[in-house]
C-alpha cells in the first residue's frame, strides 16, 4: 500500500488542502512517508515529478474535474442514492468521499490499496471537524485554503496516515 496524495475540495469546488507524499524513495534508507507540502497554495515548492510535470494547481483542477464528472455520471446511471466510491487505472487508484456538506475528500494511492472510503470518512470526522471546523480561529469558509493546514490537523493527519499505511 502506497499513498501518493490527498486533496480536499470545498463546496465551491476550490481545492483547500493538498498533501503529497514522495512516491519512490531514492534509497532504501529514506523513509517512504515524507511529507512534502502543507496547505495547498501557501507553500510553493512542489517538485512534481509527474510525467507531464503538471503544476500543483493544474493537478488539483484535473482531479476535481474528474471526480466531479464521474460523480455526476455515477448518479445518473445508478440513481440518486448511488455514491461514487473509487476508480482505478493501470497506474493508480483514486478514492472518493463526499461529506453531507458537499466537501470532497480525494486520495490517490497505488492500485493494490483497498477502498479507503472509511479512512476518508475518519479524516473528515476525526481530524477535519475536530481541528478545523471546531477551531475558533478558523474561518467558516476556507478560500485559498485559509485555516485548514493548522498544526493540529497536519500532525493528526500525518500520524493517522502513518497508521493506515505502515511502511
Amino acid at each position, binding site marked *: 500500500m502506497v499513498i501518493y496524495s490527498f486533496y480536499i475540495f470545498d463546496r465551491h469546488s476550490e481545492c483547500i488542502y493538498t498533501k503529497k507524499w514522495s512516491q519512490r524513495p531514492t534509497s532504501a534508507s529514506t523513509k517512504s512517508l515524507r511529507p512534502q507540502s502543507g496547505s495547498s497554495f501557501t507553500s510553493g515548492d512542489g517538485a512534481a515529478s*509527474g510525467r507531464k510535470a503538471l503544476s500543483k494547481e493544474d493537478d488539483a483542477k*484535473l482531479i476535481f474535474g474528474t471526480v466531479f464528472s464521474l460523480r455526476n455520471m455515477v448518479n445518473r446511471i445508478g440513481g440518486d442514492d448511488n455514491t461514487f466510491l473509487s476508480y482505478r487505472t493501470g*497506474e493508480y487508484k483514486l478514492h472518493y468521499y463526499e461529506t453531507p456538506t458537499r466537501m470532497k475528500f480525494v486520495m490517490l494511492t497505488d492500485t493494490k490499496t483497498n477502498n479507503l472510503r472509511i479512512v476518508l470518512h475518519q479524516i473528515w470526522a476525526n481530524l477535519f471537524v475536530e481541528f478545523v471546523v471546531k477551531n475558533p480561529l478558523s474561518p467558516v469558509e476556507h478560500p485559498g485554503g485559509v485555516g485548514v493546514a493548522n498544526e493540529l490537523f497536519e500532525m493528526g493527519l500525518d500520524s493517522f496516515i502513518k497508521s493506515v499505511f505502515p511502511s
Partner: protein
Amino acid sequence: MYDFPLPCPYSRVVFALLVINKAGGLIYNREFHPGLTKLSSNDLLILAGTFHGVHAITRNINPAGAPQVPGGNNPNLPPNPMSYQPTGIEVLESSNFRLQCFQTVTGTKFLLLTEPQQPNVDTTMRRIYELYSDFVMKNPFYTVEMPIRCEKFDRSLDGFVKIKS
C-alpha cells in the same frame, strides 16, 4: 434497492454494455438486466462523451511519477509505443454498480456495468471482445467506427450474457 434475486456466486449479473469509438461516440448500447436508471439515448450519448473525456484526463493524472517499465530503459530495445501508454480508468466502483472499462489497442472502449461484487468481469469482458471481433469486425456490412447494428452480435451477446446469469 435490489429488487431482483441475489445471484449465486457464479452467476453473472451484467446490467449493460456500452461501446465507445475512438472519437468518443457511442456506437453500441445494450441493457441486459434492469436495475439501473433507464437512460434516454441522448443521455447515453452524453454519458459516452463524458466518459471518453474523463478517461483521457485520468490518463494524464500520474501521481506515481514516471511509470515503471518492466524491462527498464534498455537502450538495446527499440522504443515500444505501447508499453508506455497509461491506461486511464479501468474500474470504477460505486455503491450500486461497478463499471469495468476495457480499451482496445485501437482506442475502442468497452464499458461493462455490473453488480458491485461481480466476479470474473475480466473473463466476461474478454469474451465480449471476442464476440465483437468475430461478429462485428468480420461482418462485411459493418463500417468501422460507426454504430453497430449486427444481428449476430446481438444474438451472441444474449446467448452469452443473459443465459449465464
